[in-house]
C-alpha cells in the first residue's frame, strides 16, 4: 500500500464500493423484474452463505484467537472492551507459529500427501484394468459389472472400513494372502500399520477411480486399436500410444476424485492406522476433541484450505475454461 500513489488506496475503495453498489442494484432489478426466479435463486444462496461461507470467516477469526481452557467457548475474544468502552483488536498468531515450528504438523501434512498419492497410484493400477474390462465387455455384462462397482459407493464408508479390520488381523484373509506372496511376515497383523491405511484407502476409493475411467474408455473407438495393429504396432505399443493418451481425461478425473478426499481423510487412518499414521485430518480432530485447543484446530483448517482446497478449485476453474474454449473452437 505504501508504494501506491496517495490516491491509489482511495480509488481502490471507491471501485469496491461502486461495484458493490452496482451489484446491489442488479440484484434489486432482478427482484423487481423476475420475482419467481429471484426467490428460487435466493433460497440456496442465503442458505449456503449463512451455513457454508460465513463459517469459514468464523474459522479464520478463531484461528487468530488464543486458547483459554476451562471456559466456554475456550478461546479469547478478538475484540476486547476496556473499562472506558474503547474496543481493541487482539490478534494472536501463536497457532500459526506453532503450525510452522512444531515438526508434528508439517509431518502430518506430508504424511497425508504420501498416503493420498500412493493410494491414488494403486487405485489407478488396480482400477484401470477393471475399467478397461468393463468398457470392452458385452452390454449385458457391462451393466452388471458397473452396478457391482457403483454399489459399494452407496454403502457406508465407516462400515466398509470396519469390515477391513477383520481382513487385516494376523489371521485375516488379506494378511494371509500377502504373507503367501511374501510381502509381509507370515502370522503378523497388517492392522495398525501404514500398509493397512493404504489398503483401506484403495478399498474405499476404488469405485471413484473406476467410474470416470470407464466413462472415458467406453467413448474410446476400439477400431483405432485395430488400425494400430494393422499398421504393425505391438499390443503394448498400441496401448501406450493410443489407449493411454486417449483415456487421460478419465485418469485425471479419477485421480482427483481419489486424491482430494484421501488427503483430508480421518476415519481410515484413525481406525486402520497405528498411532504414527498421523494425518492432517486426525491432527485437527485431536486438537479439537482431545486437547480442546479450538484456535489451533481452526488454524489447521485454514492451512488445509490454503494447501488443498484452493489449488483444487483453481485447477477446476482453469479446466472448465479450457474445456469451454475447446468446445467453442
Amino acid at each position, binding site marked *: 500500500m505504501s508504494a501506491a500513489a496517495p490516491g491509489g488506496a482511495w480509488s481502490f475503495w471507491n471501485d469496491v464500493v461502486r461495484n458493490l453498489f452496482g*451489484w446491489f442494484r442488479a440484484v434489486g432489478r432482478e427482484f423487481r423484474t423476475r420475482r*419467481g*426466479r429471484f426467490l*428460487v*435463486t435466493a433460497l*440456496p*444462496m442465503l*442458505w*449456503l452463505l449463512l*451455513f*457454508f*461461507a*460465513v*463459517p*469459514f470467516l*468464523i*474459522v479464520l477469526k*478463531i484461528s487468530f484467537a488464543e486458547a483459554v481452557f476451562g471456559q466456554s467457548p475456550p478461546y479469547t475474544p478478538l475484540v476486547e472492551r476496556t473499562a472506558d468502552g474503547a474496543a481493541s483488536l487482539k490478534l494472536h498468531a501463536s497457532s500459526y507459529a506453532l503450525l510452522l515450528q512444531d515438526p508434528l504438523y508439517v509431518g502430518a501434512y506430508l504424511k497425508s500427501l504420501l498416503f493420498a498419492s500412493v493410494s491414488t497410484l494403486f487405485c489407478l493400477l*488396480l*482400477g484401470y*484394468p*477393471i475399467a*478397461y474390462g468393463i468398457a470392452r465387455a458385452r452390454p449385458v455384462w457391462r451393466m452388471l*459389472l458397473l*452396478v457391482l*462397482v*457403483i*454399489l*459399494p459407493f*452407496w*454403502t*457406508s*464408508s*465407516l*462400515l466398509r472400513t*470396519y*469390515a477391513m*479390520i*477383520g*481382513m487385516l*488381523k494376523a489371521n485375516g*484373509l488379506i494378511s494371509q494372502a500377502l504373507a503367501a506372496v511374501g510381502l509381509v511376515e507370515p502370522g503378523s497383523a497388517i492392522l495398525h500399520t501404514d500398509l493397512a491405511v493404504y489398503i483401506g484407502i484403495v*478399498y474405499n476409493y*476404488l*469405485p471413484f477411480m473406476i467410474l470416470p475411467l470407464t466413462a472415458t474408455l467406453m467413448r474410446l473407438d476400439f477400431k483405432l486399436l485395430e488400425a494400430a495393429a494393422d499398421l504393425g504396432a505391438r*499390443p503394448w505399443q498400441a496401448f501406450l500410444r493410443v489407449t493411454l493418451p486417449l483415456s487421460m481425461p478419465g485418469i485425471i478425473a479419477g485421480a482427483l476424485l481419489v486424491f482430494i478426499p484421501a488427503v*483430508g*481423510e*480421518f*476415519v481410515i487412518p484413525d*481406525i486402520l492406522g497405528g498411532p504414527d499414521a498421523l494425518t492432517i*485430518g486426525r491432527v*485437527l*480432530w485431536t486438537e*479439537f476433541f482431545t486437547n480442546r485447543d479450538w484456535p489451533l484446530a481452526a488454524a489447521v*483448517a485454514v492451512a*488445509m*484450505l490454503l494447501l488443498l*482446497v484452493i489449488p483444487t*478449485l483453481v485447477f477446476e476453474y482453469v479446466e472448465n475454461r479450457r474445456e469451454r474454449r475447446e468446445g467453442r473452437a
Partner: protein
Amino acid sequence: MNRRNWGLWAVMALGYAFLYVPILSVAVYSFSASRMATVWGGFSTRWYAALFANEQIMEALGRSLTIAALAASFATLLGTASGLALSRFGRFPGRGLLSLMNSAPMVMPDVMLGLSSLLLFVSLQQALGWPERGMSTIMIAHVTLTACYVTVVVRSRMASLDDSLEEAAMDLGARPWRVFFLITLPLVAPALLAGWLLAFTLSLDDLVIASFTSGPGASTLPMLIYSKVKLGVTPEINALATLIVTVVGLGVVVAGILMHRRERRLSA
C-alpha cells in the same frame, strides 16, 4: 481367447473380490454363534436378537434415520433450486458465487466442514441463544453438505434435457411456475429421487460432521458404531453392518431398476 485376456480377467476377478469379500465376510461372521467376532462358532441368529434388544443402538438408529430423511428432503429442495438456477436462468448476479459454493463442499474434507459448522453454531448460540446443539444442528450441517450433491445430479439431468418442451409451453402462454410444475418437474423426477437417495445415504453414513455438530446425548448411529469399533470388533456390529448394507444395497438396486424401466417407457 488369448493369454492377455486371461490376465485381464484375473485382475478383474481380484478387483471385484477385493471390493466384496470384506463386507461378505462380515455378513458371514454375523451369523456365527461365537462371541469372538472373527471366529466361526456354528450358525446362529443370536446377534441379530441382541441387536434389536439393544435400546442404545435402536435409539441411535431412529435418530440417524430421522436426521437423514429430513436433511435429504430439505437438501433436495435447495439442490433443485440451485440446479434450476444454474442450468436454466442464464446469467444473473451471483451466479459464479452460487456455482462455487455448490462445488466447494464436495472437495472440502469433512473435518473442515464439521469444524466450521460447529464454530458457526457456537457463535450463533452466543449471540442469539439459538440453536441448541443436537439433532437440529446435525441436520442443518447435513443439508449444507448434501444439497450440492443434489445440485450436481439435477444440473446434469437438466443439461441433458431438451428445453424445447419448456419453450413450447411458454410460447403457448403457460406461466413460468406452471411450466416448472407441469413440464420440468416430471422430467427431472428421476434425478430428484436419485439426489434424495444420495443425500439420505450420505447423511446416514456421516461420522465426522455429526461428531462435531452434535450435542450431549444426541449420538447418531455412526458415532455409536465408531465408539464401539475403537474398542474392538463385536459380533453385534457385524449384524448391524450386514443389515444396513443389505437394506441400502437392495434399496439402490430397486430404485435403479424402477428408474431404468420408467426411462424406457418414456422413450418408447
